């Protein structure tokens, strides 16, 4: 299959991966973020590419543990950009990327903490003037400043894109799962601290954040003037009953009917 082919033409490619602190959905413990870990995995599978990790945030013991989760995937150092809490990390990251000048920047689609709006990669792309693509599934080849990549679409489909480097690509959960984090390399890995000014995000102060409420279920409201219609809608059995049943037909006639439906739905290729 062409889309699983290993990319060998990425020799000398400089890849930066933006990583964040994740939060386990069940236990709420800090961990490596799932989509970011997939982005690291994708960078590591690019043969011959040099991978550097970048994280911007405040320094805490807990966060350090989570970042070590990425180091345990087989990476020596992570660059940490020190930022205050409530800081807008976009300017700091844009500066770091401008100086680092990687050809490809990978990151998860959405963070697991904070606002998690998923806008950061787009803001970086706009600030740097680089193209951005979403749902990267594989990098097929890199040549002459152009990368041929596969984009994951819903329902397991893939689309082939050619994109001019340098570029930013986001990785979502359709990318290959991340490898396990090993304890030894995670402990041995080093942090490289970078200093940057923090720009405080003022808008955050005006927001109210509370634990998520359960969304109300939408009621089925029948708008009908006659009571009989309303009663019929309320008492109706759930099954559609609008189906067409072909009995006493030859297999050929039945097959023709099915074939027509498959063709109308456009699933035959």
């Amino acid at each position, binding site marked *: 299959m062409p889309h699983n082919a290993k990319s060998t033409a990425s020799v000398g490619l400089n890849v930066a991966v933006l990583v964040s602190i994740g939060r386990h959905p069940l236990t709420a413990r800090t961990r490596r973020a799932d989509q970011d870990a997939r982005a690291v995995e994708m960078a590591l599978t690019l043969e011959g590419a040099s991978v550097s990790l970048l994280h911007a945030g405040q320094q805490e013991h807990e966060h350090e543990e989570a970042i070590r989760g990425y180091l345990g995937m087989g990476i020596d150092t992570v660059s940490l950009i020190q930022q205050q809490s409530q800081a807008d990390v976009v300017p700091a990251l844009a500066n770091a990327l401008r100086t680092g000048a990687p050809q490809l920047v990978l990151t998860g689609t959405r963070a697991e903490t904070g606002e998690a*709006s998923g806008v950061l990669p787009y803001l970086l792309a706009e600030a740097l003037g680089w193209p951005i693509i979403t749902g990267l599934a594989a990098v097929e080849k890199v040549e002459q400043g152009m990368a041929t990549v596969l984009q994951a679409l819903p329902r397991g489909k893939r689309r082939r894109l050619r994109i001019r480097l340098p570029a930013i690509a986001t990785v979502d959960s359709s990318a290959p799962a991340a490898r396990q984090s090993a304890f030894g390399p995670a402990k041995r890995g080093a942090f490289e601290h970078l200093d940057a000014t923090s720009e405080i995000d003022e808008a955050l102060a005006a927001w109210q954040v509370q634990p998520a409420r359960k969304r109300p279920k939408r009621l089925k409201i029948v708008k009908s003037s006659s009571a009989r219609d309303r009663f019929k809608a309320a008492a109706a059995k759930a099954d559609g009953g609008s189906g067409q049943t072909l009995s006493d037909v030859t297999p050929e006639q039945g097959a023709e009917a099915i074939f027509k439906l498959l063709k109308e739905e456009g699933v*035959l290729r």
Partner: protein
Amino acid sequence: MSELVRRDPRKEWIARNRLHPQHLEVLAELGGGAVANEWMGPNGVMRRNPHAVGFIGPNGIRRIDRSGAQQAAQAPGRSVEAKDARRHVAIDTPAFMIAVVPDMAGGRLSSHDRDLLGLARQLADADPAQPGAVLAIVFGEHKETTFGEAGIDRLMHLEGERFSGYLPELSVATLQGVDREMAPRYWLLPDSNVGGELGRRLAARLGERPAAQVWQVEADAESATGWRCTARGAAGRNDISRTLPRIVLALAECADPVSETRHAAEPIKLSNGLPDVLGRIEDMGEVAVDPASVSLAEAEFILSAGNGVKDWDSYHYAADVLGATKGASRVAVDDGYMPRDRQVGATGTWVSARVYVAVGISGAIQHLQGIQSCDKVVAINLDEGCDMVKRADLAVIGDASAVLAALVKRVEQYRFEQQENRDAA
């Protein structure tokens, strides 16, 4: 035929008079050629059909009116077609605009798009003295005909060669042009795969901070824009309540779709023409994917086998020819014909296929639960009374292997014709 009701007072009088010699004839005539309810039997005895009397009343219950006053209601062809009671709304000089970019998945407005248009209407109609107009921007070809019913006042349809395929840069530049020209008060986009990406690109381009994953919008006099929204944050763990920003990426069911009004959906164009964009992303088309590698939960087309399949080789061959992902019922898995990860149903995988073909599956309730979100279900079964046939949109009663073989033959013929056309072209 004229819809006017022609009454014949004399015949109505005869119909009321049960002792009139022509009573039965007139009744039959007014009843629109209904079965005569009295006749001479073979032994010379008058027979009477007690079921042929009366008429179906307006609430669907049979009424027998001995006075004869209601006889005229029995006449057929009187059923008035359900009139479209939706109010027609035209907004000629809108106070402001609300721009919506629907996903148009499959060329039609999805339910997510309709919810979003409902939200747009809510924002536009908040002040009845100064109504706003809802502007929808649609890229590429579409098959939708009910834009007005969905609540759209102005429709900007961008079609042609330039707008086919994946063109995020051109789309964003076009939306930027719309923003410059019409200056909509709000931009609403669905926070789905397509709309979410476009909305974030637009927000970055316009330098606005969007609200993503919005699921509730309420009027709030204290906030700067008069509206307040609630959005999911931190991977769905938090609710962020904030003033409604200019760009909103909303989740499904953020508002109720429009149902009571119809709108003009008046086509408009960009007066400045379309922007020229230097594309740095080039779409090289979709890639054929091996259906077997697609996970069952997100497969588009599933051929599922159950206890009724006896010839497993031909089933596997059929799945290959059709290009379908293979699924199975619990029985087929338990008997060892299919691997466990292919099981569909409550104890296996919940599938969301667009087309689900069930071969020889009777439809246990656990299996039917698993295929709840499938659009079209096709059943091939021997038993006409089974639950799968009741659920199916198309059911073929017959031997599974014979029908499958015929289907394979038909598809192979179709492929062959296609190949010939391609060679001829």
